C-alpha cells in the first residue's frame, strides 16, 4: 500500500515540476480564489471569470481530461499523470473537473461511454476543454429522487424530437449552453424502457429558464414548450435513456471521488485560537476540543472515502458501494458539522464571511447541511443504492459502472 499522493517515478517527477510551475504562473492574481465547488451560491463575477479562464487554459492543454484521447479534447496521458494533476491542483483547493461550473466532470465520461462517434467528435471537445457550460436537468416537480418517473415528453417528429415539460431545481445562477436531460420518448412504454437521454442546446426556441431562490442559493426551473431538438442529439439510442442515466448518476452519486480534503477543521481551529471567552482561548476549552475531535474523525473519514473512490475509479476497478456510502455519510457529516459549528461559535457561525471562499465559510457549511440532503437523490436513495451494491437482501451484488 502507498498512501502518498505525491511520490513519483522520475518521469512523473518531471511532469509534476511542469504542472506546478504552470499552476504557479496561472494562479497569479487568483490565489484568493482557491477552493473549488461545482457551482457557487455566490454571484461573484470575478471568481467566475477567473475560474472559467483557468479552466479553459487547462482545457487547451488537454489537462482537464488528461486520460482522454486527444481527438476528444484530452491529452492521451496515463493514470499517473491524472494523479499528478489532481494532487497539484489540490494544493490550491481545486479539483480538476470541478472548477468551472460546466458539469464536464459528469457529461464527458458519459458521452465517452454512450455517445456515437459523431457525437463524441461534435460535443466532447468543447466540453472537455471547459468551453461550454452544461446543466444536468433531471428533477421534475412530481418526481424528485424517483428520476425514472420522468414526465417531460420528447415525441419524434421527422428529424426532430418535440420536447414539452418542466424541470426544477437545476443549474446555477449563470446561463447554460446546453441542457443534458432525461425525456420520455415512449409514454406508453414500460418504466425504465421508455426514456431517452437528450442533449438540448439551451438557446433553442421554447426553452425558458427562471431562477428559484433556495436554501443553497439560486437554482432554476426550466420549461420546454414545443422545443424542437435534432434527433441526432439523442445519446445512447432511443428508449435506452435509463442505462445512460446509470452511468451519469454513478458520478452524480459520489462515484467520482477526489483527492483534495475538506478544509473546515483548520478554519475552526483558527477561529478557536483567535477567540476567547472570559480571556481563555476557545481552543483550550475541553468541550470545544471534544467537539473538534468529533469533526476531525468524521471529516478524515469523508476525505479517505473520497480518495478511495477516486483511486478505484481511475485504476478502473470502480468501488461497488463506495459512492453511495460516501454520499450518505458525507451529507450526514455536513449536517452534524453544522450543528457543531453552532456549538462552538454560536451565532457567529451563522454570519457569512465574504472574505473567504464559500466552501470555507461557516455559514455556508451550516446552511448547506439541511440544504444539500437531497441534491441528486436523497439520503434514502443513497442507502438504497448502497444495499444493491453491497448485496443486502439480494443474491448478486450490482457492480458500479466504469466511469473513467
Amino acid at each position, binding site marked *: 500500500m502507498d498512501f502518498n499522493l505525491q511520490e513519483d517515478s522520475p518521469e512523473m517527477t518531471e511532469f509534476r515540476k511542469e504542472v506546478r510551475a504552470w499552476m504557479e504562473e496561472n494562479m497569479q492574481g487568483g490565489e484568493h480564489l482557491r477552493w473549488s465547488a461545482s457551482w457557487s451560491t455566490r454571484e461573484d463575477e470575478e471568481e467566475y471569470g477567473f475560474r472559467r479562464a483557468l479552466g479553459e487554459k487547462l482545457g487547451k492543454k488537454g489537462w482537464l481530461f488528461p486520460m482522454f484521447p486527444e481527438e476528444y479534447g484530452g491529452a492521451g496521458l496515463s493514470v499517473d499523470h491524472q494523479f499528478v494533476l489532481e494532487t497539484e491542483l489540490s494544493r490550491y483547493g481545486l479539483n480538476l473537473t470541478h472548477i468551472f461550473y460546466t458539469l464536464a466532470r459528469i457529461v464527458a465520461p458519459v458521452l465517452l461511454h454512450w455517445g456515437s462517434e459523431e457525437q463524441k467528435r461534435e460535443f466532447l471537445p468543447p466540453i472537455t476543454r471547459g468551453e461550454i457550460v452544461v446543466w444536468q436537468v433531471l428533477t421534475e416537480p*412530481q418526481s*424528485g429522487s424517483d428520476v425514472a418517473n420522468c414526465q417531460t415528453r420528447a415525441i419524434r417528429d421527422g428529424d426532430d424530437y418535440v420536447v414539452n415539460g418542466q424541470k*426544477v431545481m437545476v443549474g446555477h445562477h449563470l446561463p447554460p449552453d446546453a441542457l443534458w436531460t432525461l425525456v420520455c420518448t415512449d409514454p406508453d412504454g414500460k418504466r425504465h424502457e421508455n426514456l431517452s437521454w437528450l442533449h438540448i442546446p439551451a438557446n433553442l426556441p421554447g426553452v425558458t429558464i427562471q431562477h428559484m*431562490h433556495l436554501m443553497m442559493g439560486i437554482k432554476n426551473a426550466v420549461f420546454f414548450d414545443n422545443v424542437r431538438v435534432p434527433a441526432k442529439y439523442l445519446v445512447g439510442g432511443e428508449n435506452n435513456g435509463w442505462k445512460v442515466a446509470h452511468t451519469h448518476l454513478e458520478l452524480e452519486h459520489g462515484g467520482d471521488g477526489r483527492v483534495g480534503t475538506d478544509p473546515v477543521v483548520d478554519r475552526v481551529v483558527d477561529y478557536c485560537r483567535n477567540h476567547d*471567552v472570559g480571556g481563555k482561548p476557545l481552543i483550550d476549552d475541553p468541550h470545544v476540543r471534544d467537539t473538534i475531535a468529533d469533526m476531525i474523525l468524521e471529516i478524515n473519514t469523508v476525505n479517505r472515502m473520497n480518495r478511495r473512490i477516486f483511486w478505484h475509479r481511475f485504476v478502473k476497478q470502480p468501488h461497488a458501494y463506495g459512492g453511495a456510502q460516501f454520499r450518505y455519510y458525507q451529507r450526514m457529516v455536513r449536517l452534524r458539522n453544522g450543528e457543531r459549528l*453552532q456549538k462552538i461559535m*454560536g451565532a457567529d457561525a451563522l454570519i457569512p464571511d465574504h472574505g473567504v471562499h464559500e466552501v470555507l465559510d461557516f455559514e455556508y457549511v451550516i446552511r448547506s447541511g439541511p440544504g444539500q440532503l437531497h441534491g441528486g437523490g436523497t439520503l434514502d436513495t443513497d442507502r438504497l443504492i448502497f444495499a444493491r451494491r453491497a448485496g443486502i437482501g439480494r443474491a448478486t451484488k450490482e457492480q458500479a459502472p466504469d466511469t473513467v
Partner: protein
Amino acid sequence: MDLRLNEDQEMFKKVAGDFVQAEAPTTMLTQQFLKKETFLPDLYAKIAGLGWLGMLMPEQYGGTGLSYLDCGVVFEELGRGPVPGPVFSSGVLAAQIVLDGGSDAQKQELLPAICGGDAIVIPAIGDHGAHWGPETVATTCSQSGDTLTLQGTKRHVYDAGGATAFLCAVRGGDGGVSVVLVDRNARGVTVTPHTGFMVSVSEVSLDGVQVPAGNVIGSAGAGWELLDKAAEKAIPILCAYKVGACQEVYEFTVQYTNERRAFGQLIGRFQRVQDHCVELSIHMDRARMATYETLWLLDEGMPAEAGVHESKAAASEGYHQACSYSHMVHAGPGTDYLHPLMVHSVLAHTLYQYLGTPDYHKRRMVDALYPRT
C-alpha cells in the same frame, strides 16, 4: 397527576391558535422572513391589545398576572406561526428583569409601557460567544459624577429591530456586572442587523454612550445574578414557543408523507421516511414534556433550576433537529424559501444559541443536580 389543560388554558390555546392563523399566516411569514423583516409593528400592537405582553407581570404594572402554564400555552401557539418579534424578549424576559431588579419607580415607569407595547425593551447581555454567563460580558462602564459611559459591542442581540431601549449588561471598574437601561436613540448607539442564515439578530454597538447613573437596574455589580434568575423564569416560556414550532413542523411533515408520491406510492410508506418522522416526534415530545413539567414546577414554587436548563437544551436542540428531519422528508421542495419549513429552519438555527447553546444548558443542568465537589 393530570396531563390535561384546564378550561382557561384550552380557551387561551384556541384564541391564540386562531389569532396566529388569521394574523400571521404562513404565506405572510415566508415573505417577511425572506425579506428579513421580522418586526411587524401592527402585529405587535394587536398582540399587546390581547394582553400577551406581560402575561407573567402583576396586574398593578399592566400585566395579566397569569401562571407560567397559562403563558406557556399561549407561547406554544405563537410558536406554531412562528410569530416573530420581541414578544418574548421584551414582554417576558426584559419585563422579568425589570420586575426582579427594578426600583419601584423603574417598575412603574417601564413595566406598563412594556406590557402595553409602547416600550420595547431588549436585553443585550453577552458581547460575544456561544455562551450565556458573566464571562461573556465585556462592554465597559465607567462612572463620572451621575453619568455612566458605556463602551463595547454586543455582537448578537436578538429582536433589536423594534427596540426602544436596551437592557445592557456592562462591566464596571471593579469587574462586577451591572444592568443598565440604554435608550435606543441615545448618541453612540448603532444597531446593525445581521445578514446570513438567521433572522432578528443585530449587532448593537455602544460607542461612548452616556446614560444617567439612575439607569442601573438592580444593585450595581450584582447584575449577573439578576439576569440569571430572570432568565430562569423566562426560558421555559421560550421553550414553549419552540415546542409549538416543533408541533407545526411535525404536523405539516406528517401531512406531506400522505400527499407526496414516489416510486408509485405515498412516501410515508417508506420505512426511511417513517424513521425520519419517528425521530422528529421524539425530539418534539422530549422538549414538550420537559418544558411543561418545568412550567408546572415554577407555578408550584418548587425547585426548577435543573428543569429550566434541561428544557432549554431539549427545546433548542429539538427544534433544530425537528427541522433537519423534516428536511429529510421534504427534500427539494422544503428548501424553497417560500415553503413554511424554511421559516422554521431559519428560526431554529437562530434560536439554537439564544440565551446559551444546548451544550451550555446541559452543563448547567448537571451543575444544578450534582454540584462540583
